[in-house]
């Protein structure tokens, strides 16, 4: 835990990071396991080959690192008010990602599964709305497009 590292912030129960390195989903899962909990929910967002009939060859992700981490903290604080989350880890990739690679991972532990599924669903929906990270499609035909949902 380092206060000078802008791309990652951690406490014992919350780990948030943005990384250019491949995401290790087993480590992510193990980081939230806890004997007080009967449930670990893991969500992975992966690079899909076909979007609306168009073929993707790879994606590029860009982040406003400092704000992305602070937004993630804000979302986790909100989720903790609604659901009894014991431990939570969220990690998002930046840079170049090939098909099938993990772009985002959320792992969290809760006493029971229902609240775990709900919390993960809430967090992923919110991440897509407010956390300043963007993806660019590198299409198989050689063209590129920034994905900007409301533009």
């Amino acid at each position, binding site marked *: 835990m380092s206060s000078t590292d802008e791309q990652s912030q951690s406490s014992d129960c919350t780990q948030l990071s943005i990384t250019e390195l491949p995401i290790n989903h087993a480590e992510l899962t193990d980081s939230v396991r806890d004997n007080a909990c009967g449930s670990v929910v893991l969500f992975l*967002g992966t690079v899909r080959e076909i979007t609306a009939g168009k073929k993707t060859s790879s994606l590029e*992700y*860009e*982040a*406003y690192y*400092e*704000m*992305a981490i*602070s*937004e993630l903290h804000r979302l986790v604080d909100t989720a903790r008010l609604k659901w009894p989350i014991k431990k939570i880890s969220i990690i*998002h990739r930046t840079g170049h990602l090939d098909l099938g690679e993990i*772009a*985002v991972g959320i792992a969290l532990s809760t006493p029971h599964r229902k609240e775990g599924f709900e919390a993960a669903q809430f967090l*992923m929906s919110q*991440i*897509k*709305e*407010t*956390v*300043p*990270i*963007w*993806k*660019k499609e590198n299409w198989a035909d050689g063209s590129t497009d*920034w*994905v*900007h*949902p*409301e*533009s």
Partner: protein
Amino acid sequence: MTDSIQITMICFAGLKEKVGSGRISLTIPVNSTCTEFISQLVASYPQTQVYSSCLLVARNGNYLNETDIIQDQDELACFPPVSGG
């Protein structure tokens, strides 16, 4: 003439490509709202017109509302709608 202030702004993703830089300076009238700031940006960089109705502005890492006033010592960021995940 109205007093004006110079703002330095960081930008990301499609907006960064349109303006050709991740950091630009913009002169705006004092007490400009967020909406007025975006209008000034589009006037100075017409190629950003495509994003004019959807740009988001953040000050020191917090989203601004349309009527918030832009001040000159802030770290200001501007970007199109996010698309992580």
